[in-house]
C-alpha cells in the first residue's frame, strides 16, 4: 500500500482484526505518560480515548469498518477545539475553557476511526517558532532536550518525533507545522488554503491559517491529510476541489518531474549545513530522473515583511474577543474597560502582546496605507511570481528552516531573530499554496534537516509525489551527511 507508516499499519491491523485499537491507544498513552518531561501535552484525554478505542474494537467485532484511521492515536494542537477537553492555545487567558463544540477536523477524525489522545503544547496562540512562548512551559525536542522543538506546533511535533503518537494535527500560519517538523525530523504539511476547514481552529491570522498533518512518514501524512481535507459548509473559505489520486502520487516516480530550487529562499540567511542537505536532495532527485533547475521568485524576499504585517493585523482583531466577559480568565476591576485591560494584560504573554500591538498599529488611522495595504499588494506579487515559477516547474524546493533546532533562550531576547525562523515558510501561506517538510538527513550536531516541497494551489498530489520520492531517496544518501552533498545539482 502507498499510505504507509506507523499509523497506516495500526489502522490496517485494527481493521483486519489483527490488533485492538485499545492496545494501540494504551501504548500511546503509556508513552505519553513516560515522556512527561518533554512537555508535549497540555492535556491527555486518556479515559475518553480508551472508551473510544473500545467502541472501535466493538465495531470491528461487529463486522463494521471504523474507517481508514481505525484505532490510530492522534494528538491535537491545543488550538483545535474539542468539546470533551479544554482548549487553551497555551494561554492563561483561555485557561479552563472547554468549547461546547468540536472542530470540523475532530469530527472528520472520529468518522475515520482515529482516536484523539490529548492536546499538545504550542506557542501561545500559535505565535512563535520555538514553543517557548507557552504559558505552561516549553516543549523539549525529543532528539535533544536542550533544544527547542520549533514552533508554534512544538508539542505536536514532539509527540510524533518522540513516538508518543504516530500522528498529530497542527496549524500553520507562517510555518508552524513545517518548521517544527523539520527541527524534529518528521513530516509536516500545510495544505492549500481552503482544503481543510478552519471551523474550530482558534484563529491566529484567518487568511493564512491552515490545519495540517504531522507524521513520521509521507504516507501517513498523506493519509491523515486525506481524512481531514474537504469542503465544509461551516467555513466560507473552504473549497470543494477534488483531492486527486494521492495513492497514485505516493507510488509514482519522479522521472521527468520538473523541480525548481527557489533562489531567494536558498541563499542568504540559510545555514550551510541546511543548504548542503538541500543540495543533496536536488542531487538525489536529479539522479532519480527529475529535471532540477534554479528559479527566481522575486517577491519571495518581501514575504517575511508582508507576513509580519498581515498576520499581526488579523491577529489583533481575532484576539480582541478575549476580554473577560464570556469565557476564560477575568481579572476583576471596577469598570468594564478596566476589567478588559486588566484581564488582557494578565492573560497574554509578551509575544502575543507584541503582535497585537503591531497589528493594531499597522491597521490604525494614518498607517494603514503604508503598511497593511502595501502588504496586501505584496501578497499579489507573491502569488504572481509563484504562478510564473509554476509555469516552468511542477514543484519548488527550498529549505524548511534556516537552521537546525536551536537551544532554549537562544532567540528569545530579540523577537526579530526569532521571526527570521519563518523566512522560508511564509511565502506558501501568503500564496495559499501547499507545502510539506520532509526530513532529509542531518546537519550540524547530527540534528535533522527538513527539505520543503512546495506546489501550486491544489497541487497536493504532485507535492506528495515529490515528497515520497525524497523519502525513498534518503535511504540512498550517505548519512550522516554534510560534505558529501554538493552544489552539482544546480544547473
Amino acid at each position: 500500500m502507498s499510505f504507509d507508516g506507523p499509523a497506516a499499519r495500526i489502522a490496517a491491523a485494527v481493521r483486519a482484526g489483527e490488533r485492538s485499537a485499545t492496545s494501540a491507544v494504551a501504548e500511546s498513552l503509556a508513552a505519553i505518560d513516560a515522556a512527561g518531561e518533554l512537555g508535549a501535552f497540555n492535556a491527555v484525554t486518556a479515559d475518553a480515548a480508551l472508551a473510544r478505542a473500545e467502541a472501535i474494537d466493538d465495531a470491528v467485532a461487529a463486522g463494521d469498518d471504523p474507517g481508514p484511521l481505525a484505532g490510530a492515536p492522534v494528538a491535537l494542537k491545543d488550538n483545535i477545539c474539542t468539546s470533551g477537553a479544554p482548549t487553551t492555545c497555551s494561554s492563561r487567558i483561555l485557561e479552563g475553557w472547554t468549547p461546547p463544540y468540536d472542530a470540523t477536523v475532530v469530527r472528520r477524525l472520529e468518522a475515520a476511526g482515529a482516536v484523539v489522545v490529548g492536546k499538545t503544547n504550542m506557542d501561545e496562540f500559535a505565535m512563535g517558532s520555538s514553543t517557548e512562548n507557552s504559558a505552561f512551559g516549553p516543549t523539549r525536542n525529543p532528539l535533544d532536550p536542550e533544544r527547542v522543538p520549533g514552533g508554534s506546533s512544538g508539542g505536536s511535533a514532539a509527540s510524533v518525533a518522540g513516538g508518543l503518537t504516530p500522528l498529530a494535527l497542527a496549524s500553520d500560519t507562517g510555518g508552524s507545522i513545517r518548521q517544527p517538523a523539520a527541527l524534529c525530523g518528521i513530516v509536516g504539511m500545510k495544505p492549500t488554503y481552503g482544503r481543510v476547514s478552519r471551523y474550530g481552529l482558534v484563529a491566529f491570522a484567518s487568511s493564512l491559517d491552515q490545519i495540517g498533518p504531522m507524521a513520521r512518514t509521507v504516507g501517513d501524512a498523506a493519509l491523515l491529510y486525506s481524512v481531514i481535507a474537504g469542503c465544509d459548509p461551516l467555513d466560507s473559505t473552504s473549497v470543494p476541489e477534488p483531492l486527486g489520486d494521492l495513492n497514485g502520487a505516493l507510488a509514482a516516480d519522479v522521472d521527468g518531474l520538473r523541480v525548481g530550487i527557489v533562489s531567494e529562499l536558498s541563499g542568504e540567511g540559510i545555514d550551510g549545513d541546511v543548504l548542503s542537505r538541500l543540495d543533496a536532495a536536488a542531487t538525489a532527485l536529479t539522479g532519480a530522473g527529475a529535471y532540477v533547475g534554479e528559479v527566481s521568485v522575486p517577491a519571495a524576499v518581501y514575504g517575511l515583511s508582508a507576513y509580519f504585517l498581515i498576520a499581526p493585523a488579523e491577529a489583533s482583531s481575532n484576539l480582541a474577543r478575549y476580554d473577560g466577559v464570556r469565557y476564560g480568565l477575568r481579572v476583576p476591576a471596577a469598570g468594564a474597560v478596566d476589567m478588559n485591560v486588566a484581564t488582557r494584560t494578565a492573560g497574554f504573554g509578551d509575544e502575543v502582546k507584541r503582535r497585537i500591538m503591531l497589528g493594531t498599529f499597522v491597521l490604525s488611522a494614518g498607517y494603514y496605507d503604508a503598511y497593511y495595504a502595501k502588504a496586501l499588494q505584496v501578497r499579489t506579487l507573491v502569488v504572481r511570481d509563484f504562478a510564473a515559477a509554476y509555469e516552468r516547474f511542477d514543484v519548488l524546493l527550498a529549505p524548511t528552516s534556516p537552521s537546525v533546532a536551536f537551544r532554549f533562550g537562544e532567540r528569545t531576547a530579540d523577537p526579530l531573530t526569532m521571526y527570521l525562523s519563518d523566512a522560508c515558510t511564509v511565502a506558501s501561506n501568503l500564496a495559499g499554496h501547499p507545502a510539506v517538510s520532509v526530513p532529509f538527513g542531518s546537519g550540524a550536531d547530527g540534528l535533522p534537516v527538513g527539505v520543503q516541497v512546495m506546489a501550486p494551489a491544489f497541487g497536493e498530489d504532485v507535492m506528495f509525489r515529490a515528497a515520497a520520492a525524497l523519502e525513498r531517496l534518503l535511504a540512498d544518501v550517505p548519512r550522516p551527511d554534510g560534505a558529501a552533498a554538493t552544489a552539482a545539482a544546480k544547473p
Partner: protein
Amino acid sequence: MSDRPGFGADRVWQSGSPGLGAPAGTEWEMVVGLEVHAELLTATKLFSASPNAFGGQPNTHIDPVCLGLPGTLPVLNRRAVELAIRVGLALGAEVRPSIFARKNYYYPDMPKNYQISQYDRPINTGGSLELPSGKVVGIVRAHLEEDTGKSTHVGGAGRIDDAAWSLVDYNRAGVPLLEIVSHPDLRSAAEAREYVTELRATLLAVGASDGKMEEGSLRVDANVSVRPRGSAELGTRCEVKNVNSLRSLGRALEHEARRQIDLLSSGQRVAQETRHWNEDTGRTSLLRSKEEATDYRYFPEPDLVPLVPEPALIERIRADLPLLPRQRRHRLAAAAGQSPARVALLVERGQDDLALAAVEAGATPESVLKHLEQHLADGAGALTAAGLAGLIAMEQRGELSSNQSKAVLAEMVRSGGSPSEVAQRAGFEAVAAGELAGVLERIIAEHPAEWQRLCTGDERERKKMQGFFTGQVMRATKGQANGRDVAALLEDRAGTSADSAPG
C-alpha cells in the same frame, strides 16, 4: 432665547440676540442626514443559524458563532442578502459586488469586539427616496452588518453612569441589519420624520423589516448641522444617538438644532461630536468628542468571501418587488386627478386599492377620497369598491341624507352588502318632498324671529340662520331628510316670503 419657535417644514428660525458669529435676525436652516438601522426579517442571524426573534429569555437564541466563541466562523445568510437587494432595488440603488470588513472596537455587548459590517464596498450604493410631499432624499448607501447584544445597567440609579454592574444578553447579537444612510437632504424635523415614515413603509412593503421602532427593529441616528438659510456650505455636524421613536426624532432634532443655533448666535462654534439624546430630560449630551472618536481599524473580513450578486438574481428580485408606496401614490393620484401628496394618507392606510377600484367603478374621485379619508380611519373592513361606488351614486341621486350615508357606510364596513340593501334594512327612505315642506312650515311658525333674520339679514346672518333651520329640520326628521332638499326648500320659501315677512 426664551422664544422657541416651532420647527415645522415652513418655519424659520431667527437668532434672537446679536452674536459674534451671525448677525441678529439670521435665519437658520437645519440640515439633517439620517442613518437608519433596520433589522431584517430573516429566520436566522446574519452569519449563523440561531433564531432571529424578538423577545425570548435572555441568552436563549445563541450559538457558538454569534457568541464569538474561539474557532467559530461566519457563513452569510442567503435570505439576508436577498432582502438587502430588495431594499436596494426599492430605493433605486445600484446593487454591486461587495465585501465585508471588520469594524474594531471594544464593547461588552459585542462578542468578538469587532463588528462584521460593510465599509468601502457596500452591497447597495446610491438611490433615493421620494417622500409623500414630493421631496426626493438622496441615499448614500444601504449596507449589511450584524447587530450587537444588549446590555442592561443594574444597580445605582439605573442610569449608565451610576450602574453597579451590567448584564449582557446576546440574543440580538448577529441579527442582520441593513444600515441605510441618507444624504444630508432633510431640512426640518418634520421632514426627517416624514423620511423615516416613508422608509419604514418601503421596508414593510418589500418585506425586509417589521419596522417596529418600539422593539428596536428600526433605529435612527441623526447627523445634524445648521447654517444660515441660503448658505451652500454645510455647518459642523453632530451625530445624535438613542433616538427611539418618531416623536423622539422630532424632539431631538429640534433640541439639537436649537443648541447649535444658540452656540453660533452667541459667537461660539459647534464642535464635531457624538451626542446622546435623553428622552426624559429632552436634551442631548456629549457622548464622544471627535478627538475621542474610536479608530475602528477597518480591514477586509478574512473569514468571508466577496459577495457578487448575479445579474439574474438581481433581475429575479426586481421582478418580484411589490408596488412601492411611492408608486401607489402616483398611481392613485393619476387616477384621481390629484397630487401624490393628497392621496398619501390613503396609501399609508393601504386603502388605495379600494379607492382605485371605486373610481374605476365610476365613482367621483373626490367623493371616494373624502369618504375614505374622513370615515375610514379605522380601516375599510368589509367595504367593497362596488359598495362604495354605489353609496356615492345614491348620495348623488339624493336618495340618502349625509347622516344616512354615514350610517350605511359604517354598516358596510362592518358587514359588507350593497348600499341599497343596507339602506332599506335600516329603513332609510328619503322624506317625501311634501312632508318636508310641512315640517319646515311648522318650524318657521315656531321661530318667527329667526326666520325674519334669515329673510332680511346680511349674508353672514342668512348663512347662520340657514344652518339653524336645516338643523331643526334634521332633528325633526331624525336626520332622514336629504340635506340638499332642505337647502332647496329653504331657498324657495325664503324667496316667496320676502314680501309677506311679518312687519
